């Protein structure tokens, strides 16, 4: 089995595409590092600035002629509470550290997702479009083993990208802003609108963990489409489209009762730590079960269409 995974790994890493991807990720992090360094705000006046911001928000809220919708109003109130918390606890929002940079760099996640989806979508379909599937499936190895090796190597690739993003960004962040800040407080509001804080290292690990789960689902989905339609283009296209507009769709449909069962209402588990869940009343356990159900479904469809179907001329 290890040998089969090794074989699949070679197919991924021997392609020029993969090498370019890794270089692109590094480049994106470096650019982000330069961009953030050039916009770092001075430390001195941050309390005053936050104070001014809060006063402005207060004025807006007190304006009797304001037609501000309730949602925006409460968002402003949260903003104020958070600012006040920062002032009270003497936590500068302008201070950039290596760890904080690593957290910010997780915004490059869509890039990773695109690359991982490309490789996952190509994994099975690529063998069909190049015709190599004929030679692959006549080895004295059952199809289920080949499928498993392909899935594992695809996941491994996604994991490597995720770890690369984390490690590169810690390195770049450390070089640019110093390797400090593991315990720098990260301030956020939870579902009950309480302002809270946690050490930056926890925030970074949580962020990458949750993004990793999201990535896992997207890769599995793309892998399924790859097996189902035997077309790389379709697998990559559909998965990318869903990755981009998925959560928007989930939000748009949030008035329907079945919305909470949609994949994209559940993929981002960080919604249960920070801010409000997309669908009111769902919990992390609920989302976990929904994700698991989708996961099993995806793998079942993948298996069915890879192991049970004829390979035609």
């Amino acid at each position, binding site marked *: 089995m290890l040998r089969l995974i090794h074989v699949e790994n*070679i197919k991924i890493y*021997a392609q020029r595409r993969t090498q370019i991807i890794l270089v692109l990720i590094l480049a994106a992090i470096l650019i982000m590092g330069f961009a953030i360094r050039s916009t770092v705000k001075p430390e001195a006046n941050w309390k005053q600035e936050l104070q001014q911001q809060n006063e402005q928000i207060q004025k807006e809220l007190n304006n009797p002629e304001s037609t501000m919708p309730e949602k925006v109003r409460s968002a402003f109130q949260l903003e104020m509470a958070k600012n006040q918390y920062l002032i009270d606890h003497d936590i500068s929002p302008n201070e950039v550290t290596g760890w904080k940079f690593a957290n910010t760099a997780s915004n490059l996640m869509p890039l990773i997702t695109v690359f991982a989806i490309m490789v996952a979508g190509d994994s099975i379909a690529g063998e069909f479009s190049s*015709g190599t599937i004929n030679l692959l499936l*006549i080895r004295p*190895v059952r199809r289920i083993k080949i499928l498993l090796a392909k899935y594992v190597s695809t996941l491994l690739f996604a994991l490597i990208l995720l770890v690369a993003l984390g490690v590169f960004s810690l390195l770049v962040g450390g070089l640019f802003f110093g390797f400090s800040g593991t315990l720098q407080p990260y301030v956020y509001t939870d579902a009950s609108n309480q302002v809270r804080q946690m050490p930056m290292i926890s925030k970074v690990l949580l962020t990458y963990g949750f993004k990793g789960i999201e990535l896992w689902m997207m890769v599995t989905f793309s892998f399924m489409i790859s097996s189902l339609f035997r077309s790389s283009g379709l697998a990559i296209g559909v998965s990318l489209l869903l990755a981009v507009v998925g959560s928007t769709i989930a939000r748009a449909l949030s008035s329907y009762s079945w919305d909470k069962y949609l994949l994209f209402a559940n993929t981002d588990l960080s919604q249960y730590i920070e801010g409000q869940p997309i669908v009111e009343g769902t919990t992390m356990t609920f989302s976990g079960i929904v994700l698991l159900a989708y996961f099993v479904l995806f793998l079942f469809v993948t298996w069915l269409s890879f192991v049970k179907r004829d390979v035609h001329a």
Partner: protein
Amino acid sequence: MTKAVVIRNLTKKIGSKTIVDQLTFEVDRGEVFGLLGPNGAGKTTTLRMMVGLMSITEGEVLIQGSSVTRNFEQAMRHVGAIIENPQMYRYLSGYQNLRLFAQMIPGISRKEIKERIDKVVRFVGLEKRIHEKVKTYSLGMRQRLGLAQALLSRPSVLILDEPTNGLDPAGIHDLRNHLRNLAKEEGVAVIVSSHLLSEMELMCDRVAIIQEGKLVSLRSVHSGAIQGEETQEENRPVTVLFEVKAVERALSVLKESGIPEAVQVSRAGIEVQTRHAAIPDLNARLVEAGIGVYGIRIATKSLEQTFLEITRGSTNA
């Protein structure tokens, strides 16, 4: 001894369409066996079922006694195959491609992988270019790499789907020699499909002619020509060519002997439909009548003639 390949009542249905219909034949070790038929006759589908790329609706395929459906891994250990044009990973070198496939042989050691690759590369004569990327290869080189790939597992059954596609005459000649060698020297059972008759005549020991998924004829090939179906030698109907100068007289002599089917086919030749055993007698009559016989020749039907007769016949029927 177990037969290398046993195919029993092999049937493939897709929807209501029957692509392959109750095919039954066996192939021995050391034999080159041809599947011949027009395009769409079901040759490729048959081969695809034999290597597990397509499921079997009915019947079974046994390779060295192991069923392809029930015991896939065991059966496929004995099989090397090229299905369609052998497509390789274009971004890898020929050598890297072979190593990928070799690594999928269960239980093979690193040392063995290297030895086997070196051996098959030498066999197909690709030593010079083996470390170049496959995308730089010509079609002929890719075919040779495909054969190398099929031989990696030291198969006792070699299955080749239209192996001469895209090969130049020299390449076809080489391939033919390779296959004959593998069959005769190493006892490999070779199964090839083709719609090219002349090739099958040169390559195969036996030929199965397939039409509309059915086996219509199973014949052996000797000295480059198809033989009649296995009937008694003396009673075998043959077409005989007599080379005579006095064609008119010869025709009337034969007519008197009760052979009305004699026809003139050339300035100095007549063709007679008769039985094998009757040839000496006919000759004697001609000689007795004072007609000089310059030559007697049995006209062997080429595979092409046979093929056309069989396939046209059943299409018209």
